[in-house]
């Protein structure tokens, strides 16, 4: 990351005060700020989710993905190792692989002029390198080694693959920290993974709003009428909101079955109709982790969410598409040793999640309401984040925005937006 750069005044001045109880609306719509985010966050010293190892089991298998707006390929090498390279030919910049996934064989070849690379991204050859009859071709002193693909640093943690454009980034476990590794490995515990299926949707709001929403337990017992009306979630469930030391990562978890009587909503009735399910098959979870947690949402900076609601497990990758839009890629997964009943549960409970999910369609809609609402707001206007106080600490309740405040502490720091903690 370019740490020597001095941010210009306009960047530092948009935050009217220290701390993160006010998030200026400009950070969701300003093209210059967005360009800085790509450079400093996504192409800087961050670890970015690129996929699961089980998606590329065989040598030569690849899967195409994005880090920020740059396309990358996650590749299984001949020796079983992993590589991640940018999906752009070093010759004239053409996109190398077009399919979402496939097998490249033993080499990656650009379809335009057939420049060819190893699965590690080293340039090995091209047609007519020496020309025809000594005419044309490349100069003999052309340095093949200097014209490989852009390679990224890669690490896998129990089958989940992360990559970074910064080869000097701290190791993944250090980047995540011990608390986050603990909750990450609660789900990714080393058992073989299998992909259950994918969903992709384009939501027209800034990528950070999507991350905020998964750090906002306060909305879950209010917006999600399905959960409330059908009695499936309450804000007074036994819960935990954990923020890591860096403040950028977090986990929120709830356990069902501990709440009693009526929820104390401070005298305010949440506007939700009262229903019961006609067919309860939809919500018959089977305990599969060694605790009574029924919902856990982990968010890792900058842009990956790991969801475990009952038996529906998924990674949700947030891919920025300009200041006002992002793509959300859902990779629903299970374990290789799932029995038939568990396979059915995962398919059935997926009704809760995804682009038509009982729970998450509300989210996508509300996030678009946010982007429309804040668009064109005059400088100086900001989101108010004071639910649960002003700090960024962990909590044992859900009525808090401390996880979002934590995210912006880390964000301001990386973006050079003044001193957040001053």
């Amino acid at each position, binding site marked *: 990351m370019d740490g020597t750069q001095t941010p210009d005044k306009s960047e530092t001045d948009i935050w009217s005060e220290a701390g993160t109880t006010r998030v200026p609306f400009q950070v969701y719509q300003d093209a210059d700020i967005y360009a800085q985010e790509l450079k400093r966050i996504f192409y800087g010293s961050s670890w970015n989710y690129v996929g699961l190892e089980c998606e590329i089991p065989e040598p030569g298998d690849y899967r195409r993905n994005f880090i920020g707006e740059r396309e990358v390929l996650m590749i299984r090498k001949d020796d079983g190792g992993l590589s991640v390279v940018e999906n752009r030919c070093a010759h004239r910049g053409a996109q190398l692989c077009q399919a979402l996934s496939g097998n490249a064989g033993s080499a990656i070849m650009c379809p335009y002029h057939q420049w060819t690379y190893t699965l590690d991204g080293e340039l090995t050859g091209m047609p007519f390198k020496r020309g025809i009859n000594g005419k044309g071709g490349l100069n003999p002193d052309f340095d093949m080694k200097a014209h490989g693909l852009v390679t990224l640093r890669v690490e896998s943690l129990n089958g989940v693959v992360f990559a970074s454009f910064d080869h000097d980034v701290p190791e993944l476990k250090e980047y995540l920290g011990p608390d986050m590794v603990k909750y990450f490995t609660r789900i990714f515990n080393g058992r073989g993974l299998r992909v259950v299926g994918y969903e992709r*949707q384009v939501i027209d709001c800034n990528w950070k709003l999507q991350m905020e929403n998964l750090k906002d337990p306060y909305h879950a017992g209010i917006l999600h*009428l399905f959960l409330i009306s059908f009695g499936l979630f309450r804000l007074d469930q036994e819960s935990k909101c954990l923020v890591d030391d860096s403040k950028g990562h977090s986990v929120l978890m709830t356990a069902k079955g501990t709440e009693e009587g009526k929820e104390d909503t401070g005298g305010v009735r949440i506007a939700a109709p009262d229903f019961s399910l006609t067919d309860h098959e*939809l919500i018959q979870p089977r305990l599969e982790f060694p605790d009574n947690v029924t919902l856990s949402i982990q968010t890792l900076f900058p842009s990956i969410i790991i969801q475990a609601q009952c038996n529906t497990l998924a990674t949700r990758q947030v891919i920025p598409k300009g200041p006002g839009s992002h793509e959300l890629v859902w990779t629903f997964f299970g374990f290789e040793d799932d029995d038939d009943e568990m396979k059915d549960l995962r398919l059935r409970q*997926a009704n809760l999640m995804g682009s038509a999910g009982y729970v998450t369609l509300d989210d*996508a809609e509300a996030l678009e309401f946010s982007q429309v609402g804040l668009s064109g707001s005059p400088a100086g206007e900001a989101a108010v984040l004071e639910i649960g106080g002003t700090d960024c600490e962990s909590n044992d309740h859900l009525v808090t925005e401390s996880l979002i405040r934590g995210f912006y502490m880390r964000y301001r720091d990386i973006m050079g937006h003044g001193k957040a903690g001053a």
Partner: protein
Amino acid sequence: MTLRRIERLQLSYISAIDEGPLDNWPHFFTDKCLYTVVSRDNFDRGMELGVMRFESVGMLIDRATATQHAAVFAPRIIRHLLGPAMVDDTGEGYRSRCNVAIYQTSPDGDTMLLMTAIYNDLIVEQDGVLKFKEKRVIYDTHRIPDSIVYPL
């Protein structure tokens, strides 16, 4: 004659979604049924994961209830355009396949293509009425613009 009846079933089905009332939608299915909406991307990979998957009329009723009373979304108009159905009598019922394009219109009046898809259905006769025993919506547009609110 059967072709005509199947065509009428398909048109009545999309009308329940496009024109309402949505409460009618579950009753186009047999009590035990399979309604799935799966992307072609998943389908081609042999993955059954769908954005919706319901296995009984009860589950369909719950979806219709939730959509009308327990979901937050911007109002919209949905419009299905159906192609002609290709029908085979399989012995266990009529297998019907037809192309469908689904458009969505926002409160501001902008219409966009939500998806193109194929309906792959198994239709059976129950007490003189044709019903869907299976309706598989396999959609091409696997990068969905915003959300899927209504059934397809």
